[in-house]
């Protein structure tokens, strides 16, 4: 088992290097030289040349990447040229917000998806099942920026139940904190539950046809007990995987949702860094996100191995 874990961890290294190299390349391909961005309307050729030299932009790209990587390996992720904040400061300040958002969104998606999946699986093929399948596809196609605005108009402007934008730190006011996360988390959850529901539904339908379920029914167990205890557990293997992988999708979603709801998370930091060509911050954030994603996949792999011994012995 230990050897397996070490091997999987080792695989992460080339992935992270590849991601950071790609980001570095893409960021340097962005139109608009950083020196021009900084100098703005006084970007005379001499000043640009001088600034490029100061910032090391006149060095070849592989050299710049190598020196960035060298610093990162020593734990120095660099400093934003605009705000003077270090990457570590900026990321650690905003990470809790995005994590809370993602966890709440995923919980919300599970809370909507699991009951609906069970209900559909029990009555598979019924009008209800077909209706929910259709709705799931519908919800999957609604972009987050649209559902966000609709939710804001309904719950913040018309009903005034929840705040439209803003963030309240948990330690300041736990209830206010949850209230400020409710709409953004719901927005993300609305795009996530259909996937979870579809996956669980089909697994559950298969499980319900197993002999031991028929056996349980024959023993006269309560239907709710059969569903929640006997059928749900073995049906949720794929669900666990999909939930984990969904985190990647959610990271993309947070960029949009954090902007609309004005939450000070990683997504906003990333977006701001792109617009201001704050490449050091951009590089740092992408590296952290990649690390998070890769670790999440690693954990899913591990879970798989725990659940299914065939995988950890390498002959799946």
């Amino acid at each position, binding site marked *: 088992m230990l050897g397996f874990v070490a091997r999987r961890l080792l695989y992460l290294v080339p992935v992270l290097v590849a991601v950071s190299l790609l980001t570095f390349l893409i960021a340097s391909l962005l139109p608009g*030289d950083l020196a021009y961005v900084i100098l703005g309307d006084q970007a005379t050729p001499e000043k640009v040349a001088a600034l490029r030299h100061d910032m090391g932009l006149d060095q070849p790209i592989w050299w710049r990447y190598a020196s960035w990587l060298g610093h990162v390996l020593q734990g120095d992720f660099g400093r934003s040229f605009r705000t003077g904040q270090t990457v570590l400061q900026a990321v650690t300040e905003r990470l809790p917000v995005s994590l809370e958002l993602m966890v709440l969104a995923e919980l919300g998606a599970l809370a909507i998806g699991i009951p609906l999946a069970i209900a559909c699986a029990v009555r598979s093929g019924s009008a209800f099942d077909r209706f929910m399948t259709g709705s799931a596809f519908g919800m999957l196609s609604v972009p987050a920026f649209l559902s966000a605005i609709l939710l804001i108009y309904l719950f913040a*402007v018309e009903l005034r139940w929840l705040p439209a934008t803003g963030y309240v730190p948990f330690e300041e006011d736990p209830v206010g904190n949850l209230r400020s996360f409710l709409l953004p988390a719901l927005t993300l959850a609305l795009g996530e539950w259909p996937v979870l529901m579809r996956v669980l539904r089909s697994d559950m339908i298969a499980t319900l046809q197993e002999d031991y379920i028929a056996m349980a029914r024959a023993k006269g167990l309560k239907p709710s007990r059969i569903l929640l205890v006997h059928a749900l557990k073995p049906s949720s293997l794929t669900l666990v995987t999909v939930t984990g992988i969904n985190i990647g999708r959610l990271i993309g979603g947070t960029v949009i949702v954090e902007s609309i709801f004005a939450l000070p998370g990683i997504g*906003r930091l990333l977006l701001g860094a792109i617009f201001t060509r704050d490449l050091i911050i951009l590089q740092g954030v992408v590296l952290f996100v990649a690390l998070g994603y890769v670790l999440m996949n690693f954990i899913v792999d591990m879970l798989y191995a725990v659940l299914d011994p065939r995988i950890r012995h390498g002959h799946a």
Partner: protein
Amino acid sequence: MTAAIRWRRFAQIFLGAAFGLALFAGAADAQKQGGSITVGLELDISGFDPLKVGVFDTAGFTAAAAIFDTLTYLDDKGVAQPKLALSWEHSEDFKTWTFKLRPGVKFHDGTPFNAEAVKANFDRQKDPANKCRCAFYIAYIHDVQAPDELTVVYNLNDPAVNLPAIFTIQSTNNVMQSPTAWKTKGDDYNRNPVGTGPYIVKSWTAGDRLVLEKNPDYWNKGHPYLDRIVLKPLPDAQSRFASLQSGEADIVWDDEYDADNIQKAQKDPKLAVHTYVGSGAQVYAFNTKVAPFDDVRVRQALVMAIDRKKMSQAITNGLSIPATNPYGEGSWVKCKDDGALPYDLEKAKALIKDYGKPVEFKMLLTATPRGRNIGQVLQQFWKQAGANMEMDQVDQATIVPRAFMRQFQLTPWRIVDLADPDPQMYANFHTGSPVALANYSNPELDKLLEHARITADPAKRIEDYCAVSRLVNQEAIWFWTFQNTYYAISSAKLKGLPKIYSGVIDISDVWME
């Protein structure tokens, strides 16, 4: 003077004075102390250290106006009035200005505000070793001297007849920051600014909120009115407006491209739309050194083919206000005749026919929905006149170097709202200036610009600037589409917001009814 006239004069003065006093008393009563407001801004504030941020963006300006003071401020009529400076005088040639400072003012950290502090602020930005992007805008100032505690002398390279007005904008150059603070805090100063202003920074959560609290020792007794101001970046226009409607924000930044919400707010009695038409304009420059724009007929034809009213309807639902000269409603330069070419499609067609060759060119535009929208509208106008424009959509950051290196045929540009036209007009149109984008040289134009910058009499300067406008309009080397219009939407209870000069939403002296 007959007795009757004298009596009438007296009555006028007396009544005027009494009315004025009544107004003043009324206004004073209405101003309510206490309370707090939340301000919704478009952007994240990146900080306040000039060496770091270079220049403020719209969000930075609003915060800076509350934390810092400037030497002077612009009153309701657009005239410079004393703030940290009490009085000023200038030399005959307008190249030396002496300001007397307000005594007894202290920065939030207790550092005294004096002539040395003013000089330190200037020297730090001017120092070539600091490579401040802000240095560009003080290039016309040679040095600053502090002969005594409360006297500051500005020695200029170029004459500036309106220097006190130029000092009113709450820019990185003009706001006074505490030298002790930036020396002791180093890299952290950017996010821990210290000024003399009516509000003190209480806390700052990056990307979320900047909390300001009333400065109890503010030099202007009785001000400010509010106890607390919370500044929040709300980047999305729809949710920003929703926050205002639901009462989470009391005032929000906006612009005319958010026309739907502005027009909705105008009909809502609970909201107030604040708008100000500044000086300057949204402008475009032809490169007159390359075909087809080396021919004045083509340039004139394109300008005459633009129907600004229709364009305004198409891009901002009619909110954009057409511009016929580079000065705008907010400028003190008013021209009886600015020489603007009229909208005349037939004439435009005739001019292009007369030119004889096909008119095909590329226009630089920003790679934004806004840039594409503007490009498509212009494309249609010009097609009707018989000219083919191809859109060259590039990143905002690419436009500037392309413009500097004259790698364009037609480029968008900006004349921003400044208290005096000289800095920009001289830079944009004088032969040899790096931003004289049209590559156009005309001794008459140069002479007018040189005369206007050393003339004190506003009437004579207006004559010069109107002659400049006529010349530029007739030669069609640049053209102007719309005026710089600024918007803020607030709760109807928010009072005391001054004009949005230079687009700065200054909430430092507002109160809630």
